């Protein structure tokens, strides 16, 4: 009754018929090696000669890369039956955020601010509340528009100037939003992006009662932070530290986060900045580039630096962070984590600046103090410099449909879609990158831009290459990176 057991070779017969290519792209990694990516953003590294063999259907069946190509759905052969179905599912998962649409609503409740940071695009050193604070009426109309989003769960972020200077309005918006959320069975989360210079215990008590998170600015050690962020009294750093301590005391350690801004003065001090974050009990940092808008452009001589210098800074910082992890300390670099989420997981991290279709409007909307609505924070900053290209309408006079279907929004999204523009459409890194219509409009004059000379492109491609190289050369670093994007 027993059947014979058949050898492994019998089950490989399907390969004898040759393999077929599944859709994939390739871009140079370093020297002779290339990164290959499939439609779901899974990658493999291969040398140029192997790549040629693969594409010309000449790859030997016993090549070590054959199984990898098959497993990651770069090729299929006669027993791959379920490969295309799985690919389609993966593409679907990567795109599912699109259905939720706008999930970040930025309310600029005041332009007033007591700091005068050279890199700031928008703030006003003024006490004129009428001129520079958002009114209750504007806030409620903006909230109406925000609640039109299809997303069941979304976030409201309060920005400025310094939003705590109009805290009364924040309270009213939070209370009203909570009521509506209950009625509509939705979840709304709140964040205040504040320099914490004017925070009080009363403010924090309210934040605690309504689960509001605090996101503050910390540019690095005291001298660097104060140099970047001047204020009367020259005590921005001291106030930030005190504000962090107080906020943590009232809200809990994990409800307070910090973001840095990179200036020319930061560029040689990556490790110091990271160590400052550690010293203050943070376990993550976001090594950001500087956007070329507003005061930053006006004071070009202070803050000018090019992509190469910034990349040097970034790599040094990332290197320092990796060393910490290798020594057993958990510390995450957030920009890498966002990209690694795209590289290593089925999901899309939903980070506005690295999305295609662009995140303007589709992921984030900005409701300005004067009722004007912008496709993104950068769009608002451009308007402050006189360029209103990305102004979509006004909360007092326009409907949701006016705003979402406006040409000002739809045209740049469509034009910049990386799946169809030159160079991006064939780039292996496209699944990790984004369409940045506002950046390219500001720096190169149109939403698509000219990628070979785009700072956004140069910067990001180098980071993608660097992360992949690090993982290829060290399984331990790959494991560390995986822990950064872990979902548990």
């Amino acid at each position, binding site marked *: 009754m027993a059947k014979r*057991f058949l050898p492994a070779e019998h089950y490989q017969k399907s390969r004898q018929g040759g393999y077929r290519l599944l859709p994939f792209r390739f871009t140079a990694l370093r020297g002779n090696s290339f990164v290959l990516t499939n439609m*779901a953003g*899974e990658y493999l590294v291969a040398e140029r000669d192997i790549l040629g063999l693969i594409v010309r259907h000449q790859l030997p069946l016993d090549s070590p890369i054959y*199984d990898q190509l098959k497993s990651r759905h770069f090729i299929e052969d006669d*027993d791959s*039956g*379920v490969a295309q179905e799985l690919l389609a*599912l993966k593409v679907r998962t990567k795109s599912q955020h699109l259905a939720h649409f706008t999930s970040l609503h930025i309310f600029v409740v005041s332009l007033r601010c007591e700091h005068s940071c050279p890199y700031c695009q928008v703030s006003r050193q003024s006490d004129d509340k009428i001129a520079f604070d958002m009114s209750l009426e504007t806030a409620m109309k903006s909230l109406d528009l925000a609640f039109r989003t299809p997303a069941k769960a979304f976030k409201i972020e309060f920005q400025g100037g310094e939003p705590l200077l109009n805290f009364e309005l924040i309270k009213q918006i939070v209370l009203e939003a909570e009521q509506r959320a209950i009625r509509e069975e939705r979840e709304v989360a709140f964040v205040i992006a504040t320099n914490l210079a004017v925070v009080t215990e009363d403010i924090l008590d309210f934040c605690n009662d309504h689960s509001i998170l605090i996101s503050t600015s910390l540019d690095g050690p005291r001298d660097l932070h104060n140099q970047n962020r001047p204020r009367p009294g020259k005590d921005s750093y001291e106030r930030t530290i005190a504000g962090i301590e107080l906020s943590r005391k009232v809200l809990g350690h994990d409800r307070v986060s910090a973001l840095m801004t990179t200036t020319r003065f930061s560029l040689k001090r990556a490790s110091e900045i990271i160590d400052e974050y550690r010293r203050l009990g943070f376990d993550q940092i976001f090594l950001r580039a500087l956007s070329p808008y507003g005061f930053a452009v006006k004071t070009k001589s202070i803050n000018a630096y090019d992509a190469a210098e910034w990349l040097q800074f970034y790599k040094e910082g990332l290197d320092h962070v990796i060393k910490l992890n290798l020594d057993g300390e958990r510390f995450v670099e957030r920009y890498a984590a966002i990209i690694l989420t795209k590289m290593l997981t089925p999901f899309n991290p939903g980070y506005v600046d690295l999305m295609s279709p662009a995140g303007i409007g589709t992921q984030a909307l900005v409701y300005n103090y004067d009722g004007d609505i912008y496709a993104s924070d950068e769009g608002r900053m451009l308007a402050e410099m006189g360029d209103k290209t990305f102004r979509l309408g006004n909360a007092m006079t326009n409907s949701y449909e006016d705003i979402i279907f406006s040409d000002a929004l739809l045209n740049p999204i469509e034009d910049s879609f990386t799946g169809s523009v030159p160079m991006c459409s064939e780039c292996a890194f496209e699944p990790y990158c984004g369409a940045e219509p506002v950046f390219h409009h500001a720096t190169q004059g149109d939403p698509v831009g000219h990628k070979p000379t785009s700072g956004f492109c140069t910067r990001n491609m180098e980071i993608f290459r660097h992360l992949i190289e690090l993982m290829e050369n060290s399984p331990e670093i790959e494991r560390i990176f995986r822990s950064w994007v*872990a979902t*548990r």
Partner: protein
Amino acid sequence: MITLQGNFKRSFGLQKLSERLVRRLTMDRAAAVSRSADFALLLEPASKAPEGCLSVAVEGSGCEPSGASTFIELPRDCDHVTAGDVVRFEIAKQRFRILYRKNSDHNNFLVTERCDNYCLMCSQPPKSANDDWILDELFDVIRLLDEQTGGFGFTGGEPTLNDRFVELLKLCNDRLPDAAIHVLSNGRRFSDPSFAERWASIAHRDLMVGIPVYSDISSIHDHVVQADGAYNETIRGILNLKRLKQRVEIRVVLHQRTFERLPELARFITRNLLFVDHVALMGLEISGFTRANLDQLWIDPIDYQNELYDAVSTLDAFGIRTSIYNLQLCLLDKRLWKFAVKSISDWKREYFPQCAGCSVRADCGGMFATAKHRFSDHIRPL
């Protein structure tokens, strides 16, 4: 090893009985008599079998038949039987099999011995004869269980080969609200959307199907299960089950054919099947076909700990509940101890002599009784 089947030691008065019976043991004489089609009386020590029902005793308990009684004595090593156990008696062959043990956490019901795979390491080698009677009998067994009955499993062969199995699960759902049910299946039948939908229509409150996937590469999986096209059907089956929001566990038996690409399989699961409810990575049981294919299968578990750690870290990083079954703590990378589960069914679990002095013996699942045929060179007390 706990004895679950064998021959009657003694019997008396069986001529009136039908060929095959299934009875639940009880010590309640009145119940045994009034519902003699369901119950058999488990005799108190040193007592005599009454009339009016089937009586069961264990050798050495000093029980005796009497007059017109119907009496079966089980061998001495069945002294673990207790009221609540369900037993099949085959009269002509004078054989018994304990189908359900009240005191066990590891009850598994065999549904059929037929299977459309033919795994190199199958511990229940398939037979092709029609054995629908086994499934039919299970309807009787389920009806004999208490309402509070806790969890149990269904295995085979391939349980889904017979459509009536879905009906059996419906019966379990109706009668046994506290029973969490685990079904072992190769998953291939679920590639048929209408079968998957019938499964989902059970709407069982706590049902999980455990499906083996042995590799990210179809030809390797198909070789292990000795069936062309099995991998594609299995993956499709998993996808169909998940579309219908059914709970799915992926099982991987760790041996020579599967350990090398284990990290790749883990990566494949996190990219393609992230929605699975559990992954069970299992040490090899040396029974059934395993012994015939040992040189293709055997690898000392100590030699695949790197691959195992890599795979488990990947799965764990992505929030997939992962367990390691059937591996002894002395062989396991220490970082993996928290994933190890004492999984070997009590009736087939044993320890080696050197385990006597081991400080973590209480936490270790021990080994299969069949391990004596081939075992690691590194079993040692910690």
